[in-house]
Every structure is written in structure tokens, then in C-alpha cells.
């Protein structure tokens, strides 16, 4: 067997199609200039309590596997981000059980709020476990922002439902017509504007958000009501990437100066909204869908992400089980994210057909 050549690594092709377990110098040599680093991005575990100490085994195992695989990374990721929806119904047992599984992670963990974590107690227990709902931090010259982008209209949140439990149940159903669109909200947008005012226009910015900060499909809340306003706040910056969860599938897009990349769930995959005949959908056109999942293999269509920041733009390596791993890298040529293998329509494979 030949040692993996640097060329193969850069193409993301070949047997070792991920930046895992490789000497770090291979990565550094590729990108002159600013320092590149990587972090692991795990999202949407949906830990679900059945009764007592019994949790849905499938979701437990998905999160455990992602955590175990991050231990295999060499070099170690700089930090780990959890992208939201740790719990299914936001209960203390679920959040505790999820936190317990995540406690095996090695390194600093940053947490992003998801709607399944929020709507039972409006994030009160989450705050105790993990800290503020929205915040920012800097790392190696990159400005990171974490938004709580799953808020909704006050009326729905405070006045519509008789109990917190029911409020959580209503928001938990993806296709529930009683749901309400996600948003960042005026208060947080004001905070964001102030936060970004202190950041130079040349500094790369990465925004973590659970909802897509785009308007993709309202029916399943693949939607952020004030996406335009938030995008406007990000417009002045040279390199912006939004990393979002919630959709449980591979999506990526470029809008102006902003790259958008979604995260897989560790729990289960969702259909592409184009599979629903009765709704109007704007799936990001660039997206090459992930392979269809075989429901027999519970981990099929689930996974986690290794995010590499090279020269301020984001490359995402998707680790998908029983499925084909994917690599969505920022292409300086096209100025947006593209799949390293399948972007060309001539290279698509049958399992990527969703209908």
C-alpha cells in the first residue's frame, strides 16, 4: 500500500478521505498565510426518555458513537461545538442524560440552543448546564458567534398554550401546523449588531445557529423569519460562514458573502423538503443531497462533522455511517461551498436521487 499522498489528501479523495488521524503538517503545508485549525461539530442528538432511566437506544447510540469517534481525531480538534437539540422534549432527565454522554468529550465544548431544548422551560435548565443562550468568542483570529435562533413570536411562546409541556409538544412536531416560525428576534439582532461592530471587516466570522438563517421550507421550520435582517448584519464582512443544525441532512449554499453549511443529526435523517409534494420549497440549489438512508441501519444517514478553517473559509467533512462520507469545501474559484466529489452533475450516483 502506498502512503497517502498529499495530493490525494488535498483532493479529499482516496482511502483516507478525512483529515482524521493524519500528521498535522499535511494540513498546514496546504494553506499558506493564516493559521488553519479544525473543530468537531456534533448536533441534533434528540435524547428521548421512554420512562424512568430508559432512553431511546437508537438516539443514545448515535451520540455515543459521534463522541467516541472524536477521540480518534489526530490532531485533536481545537474545540467541539454541540449544535442544538440535545434533548427531544427538553426535560431535565433528557438534558442530564445528554450532558452525561457529552461529558466524555475531550476539550472545550461550546453549546448552541435548539428548539427541543428550549420550549419546555425556555432554556432555564440549559443555562444552568451549559451557560448563556447566545454569546460570542474569538479563536485564532476568527470571530465566532452563537445565536439562539429558534425563538418565535411572543404570543405563541407565552400566551398560546396552557402548559409548558404542551408548548414543547407542539414545537416538537416538525410538520405540526400549530408550530410557529423560528427567528433570532429584535433583541438578539441588536446584540449581534453591537457585537459585530467591534470586529474588523477582514476578520473571518463563523455563526452557529440552530435554524438555517435562510428561508428554505416554512412547513418544517427549515426557516428563520428574520433571515434577511440577520444576513444584512453579516453582509459587511469579507468571509462569513453560517453553520446550522435542525435539518438533519446535508445542505449548503452561498448567498452573497455568506456560506451556509448544515450539520447532520446524530439521531436520525430527515427527508429533503423537495420530497413533500404539497408545499413550496426553496432547497439551496447547490446542494448535492446525501445518500438515501436504509432504515435498517440505524446510523445510516446520521453523522457528525469535522470543520476545517483554512484561510478563513470553512470546509466540512461529514462522517456518515453506512453511507458515503462527504466533503463540502469552500472553493475560492466559485466563491462558495461545493462538494469535493459530486458537485458536477455527471458525477452523481443513484443513491443521491431523492424524490
Amino acid at each position, binding site marked *: *500500500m502506498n*502512503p*497517502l499522498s498529499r495530493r490525494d489528501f488535498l483532493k479529499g479523495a482516496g*482511502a*483516507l*478521505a*478525512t483529515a*482524521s*488521524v*493524519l500528521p498535522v503538517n499535511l494540513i498546514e503545508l496546504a494553506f499558506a498565510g493564516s493559521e488553519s485549525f479544525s473543530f468537531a461539530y456534533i448536533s441534533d442528538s434528540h435524547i428521548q426518555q421512554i420512562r424512568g432511566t430508559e432512553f431511546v*437506544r*437508537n438516539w443514545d*447510540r448515535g451520540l*455515543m*458513537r459521534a*463522541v*467516541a*469517534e472524536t*477521540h*480518534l481525531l*489526530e490532531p485533536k480538534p481545537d474545540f467541539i461545538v454541540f449544535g442544538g437539540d440535545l434533548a427531544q422534549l427538553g426535560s431535565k432527565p433528557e438534558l442530564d442524560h445528554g450532558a452525561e454522554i457529552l461529558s466524555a468529550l475531550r476539550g472545550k465544548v461550546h453549546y448552541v440552543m435548539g428548539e427541543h431544548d428550549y420550549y419546555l422551560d425556555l432554556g432555564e435548565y440549559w443555562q444552568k448546564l451549559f451557560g448563556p443562550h447566545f454569546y460570542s468568542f474569538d479563536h485564532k483570529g476568527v470571530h465566532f458567534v452563537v445565536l439562539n435562533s429558534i425563538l418565535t413570536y411572543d404570543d405563541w411562546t407565552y400566551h398560546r398554550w396552557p402548559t409548558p409541556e404542551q408548548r414543547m409538544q407542539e414545537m416538537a412536531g416538525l410538520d405540526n401546523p400549530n408550530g410557529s416560525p423560528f427567528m433570532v428576534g429584535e433583541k438578539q439582532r441588536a446584540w449581534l449588531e453591537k457585537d459585530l461592530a467591534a470586529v474588523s471587516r477582514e476578520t473571518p466570522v463563523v455563526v452557529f445557529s440552530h435554524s438555517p438563517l435562510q428561508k428554505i421550507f416554512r412547513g418544517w421550520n427549515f426557516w428563520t423569519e428574520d433571515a434577511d435582517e440577520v444576513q444584512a448584519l453579516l453582509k459587511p464582512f469579507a468571509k462569513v460562514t453560517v453553520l446550522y443544525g435542525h435539518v438533519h441532512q446535508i445542505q449548503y449554499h452561498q448567498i452573497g458573502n455568506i456560506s451556509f453549511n448544515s450539520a447532520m443529526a446524530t439521531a436520525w435523517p430527515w427527508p429533503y423538503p423537495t420530497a413533500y409534494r404539497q408545499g413550496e420549497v426553496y432547497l439551496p440549489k447547490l446542494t448535492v443531497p446525501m445518500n438515501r438512508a*436504509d432504515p*435498517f*441501519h*440505524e*446510523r*445510516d444517514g*446520521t453523522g457528525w462533522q469535522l470543520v476545517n478553517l483554512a484561510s478563513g473559509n470553512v470546509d466540512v467533512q461529514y*462522517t*456518515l*455511517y*453506512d*453511507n458515503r*462520507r462527504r466533503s463540502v469545501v469552500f472553493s475560492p474559484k466559485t466563491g462558495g461551498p461545493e462538494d469535493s466529489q459530486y458537485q458536477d452533475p455527471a458525477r452523481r450516483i443513484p443513491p443521491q436521487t431523492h424524490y
Partner: protein
Amino acid sequence: MKYCIFVLCLSAAVFSSLAAAEPLGLPTVPIPADNPQTAEKIRLGERLFNDLRFSSTGTVSCATCHDHTKGFTDSPLTTSEGIKKLTGTRNAPTVLNAAYLKSLFWDGRSPSLEDQALHPFLNPVEMGLPNHEPILKIVRSDPAYVKAFSAVFGKSGGEVTMKEVTQAIASFERTVLSGDSPFDHWYFGGDKDAMSPAAQRGFQVFVGQGRCVSCHVVEQNQALFTDNRFHNIGVGINRIQADVARLAGEFLKAKAAGVDVDQAVLTDKKTSELGRFAVTGQFDDLGAFKTPTLRDIARTAPYMHDGSLKSLAEVVDHYNNGGVGNPKEKVNDFLSGGIRPLNLSTEQKADLVVFMTALTSQPAADQKRSPRP
């Protein structure tokens, strides 16, 4: 492509008929365009398969570990014994229906039957040859081989290379088929009494609560009982759980430095448990091994890549527990998502075992032996 085979002496598993259709329940055997079947090539391949001289001690041939009287394995050995009774880390897979496999070896590191034949000759715990030269010396000088290679390939002397040798072996292997079992007669042949009621109940478990069919594939008009894919079902890797990260990292560094995968996995027990990861370096191949066929499975105990499960009942228990031998054991982190506790009753488990014994092609175990070269 139809072909006639005049097979001299075979186990019952090999189909011998001028009608040349595959046994009931099997699809057409894929034949590569550059290695068409002929009767003489198959005979030559069988002779090579049985030749003990292709080992450093003159005591080991392919048939040593792939014995036609034992379902083309070396049952009941846990792991195979090569020269000087040296043992490797893995249980000999059967050659039965290997013609349908998309990759060979438990970790799929070989893409074809022709390629697979190259490797055991050189493995220090199998045939132990330093290179293929001793084989070529024999086939280029032994009068019977000289005649045969000339007749089959039109080649002689230095023109006879390992390509011809492995093509002949592969040709023979493509006739080693198992089908036409009681299950096939019942399921595809419409014979309602071909399987016992217990076996029939077992089949329902197989495609139902047992969840076997998704990997051990049965289709509408054929059943290969393998999906040709790799899964971690919790055998072997459970023992090295604490060491996986370290072993995986060390192995990949060694591989990048040029270590031979074939040797590494067969000589080091812990490395062997990495499974297909040793070939692809991908996380989801950690501890994953190829789904074998279940045909003639009753004849080829013990089971799994390390031969650690002695009986079909033990195998069923392992799956029923959700990928652990003992229900109290910790499931490994990299377990395939298809494996989960099954909650089968005692009767269901027994019926499943009875069903699997109905996959033995009939008549069973022909004790006739191949002729010596």
C-alpha cells in the same frame, strides 16, 4: 454465459450437469471477460488448489484450510493453521459461492478471486513462501502442468505467470457453488414440504423479528445470504474497546510507512479486530467485517472472523443480545446501527437455528476426494 464442466470428483456442493444452469436459488455466476470458463481450466485450477508443494514446507495447499469435505473450510478449527501449524488470527471463510462476492477476505482487502489467490502463498503463517517464484518454478517444469498450461492458455516457460496460475484457480472456485437446498426448494421451488415446520417458522423470524435478511440477503428469486458489505456486529472488538483509539492511530501511521496490511492483520490479534478499517481507514469501518453467506453454514462451524462463536445457537444469542456475548457486557461504541437487542423467545431462537440448517445444499457432505496431481 453457458459452459460445460466435466468435474471429476467433487463435494456435493459443486454443481455438475451438462445443462449448466446455476443451482436453484442462485443467480448467474459472474465471469470476468478476460477469464472465461473452460473444462480444462477448471481442472487445472482444482489441481493447483490442492497442490501442497506451493508452501515452504510442502505441507499446505489451499485445500488444507478450504477442504471440500468440510464445506471448503477447515471446520472445526477456530483459526486456520498454516505451515508448521502456525496459526493466524482469522477463521477460514468458505469458498462456497465466493464467485458471487464483490471482495475477498473478511475485510474485503482483495477485489477479485484472481487477486485473492496471490496472498496466502506469501503470508508467513499460511504458506510461508518468500515470493511466488517457487510456484512458477513448479508450474513451468512439472510435465503435467506444462501440458495443462499450454493447452489452457497457449503459454509455456516464462510466459506462464501468476496471472495464469490465479486465473485457473479462480476458474475452479467459480464452480464451487452451494444452492438447491431444502430452503430453495421450499421458497423458490414451491415444494411446501421441503422444509420442516420449525424451519419455516425460523424463516419467518429470519425475515421478521430476527432482522437477519437485511444483511443476509434473500430476494424475490434468489438468495445469496450476503449483502457484500461490512458491519461491526460486536465480535472481537468488544475485547479491545479501551484500546481502539490508540490501535487505530498506530495502525494508520504504520500503514502510511508501508506496512503490509495482509501480514499485519493476520499476525497481530489486536490489529485484526480493526477489521475493514485496516483497509479503508474510515471510521465507520472500525471493527467491521464482511457479511458471509449462510449457505452450508451448518457445516462450517465455528463462526465469525475469529471463530469465537462455536455453534449457531451461540451466534443467535450474540445477535439476540444486541451484539454482545453476555447481556451485561458493554456494547462497543462502533457497533453497526443494524444490531440491536431482538427479544426473541427460546422457541424463536431454536427455530432460527433449524432454518439455518436447511441452507445446506443436498445431498450433504460428499466424502469423495479430489485426485492428486
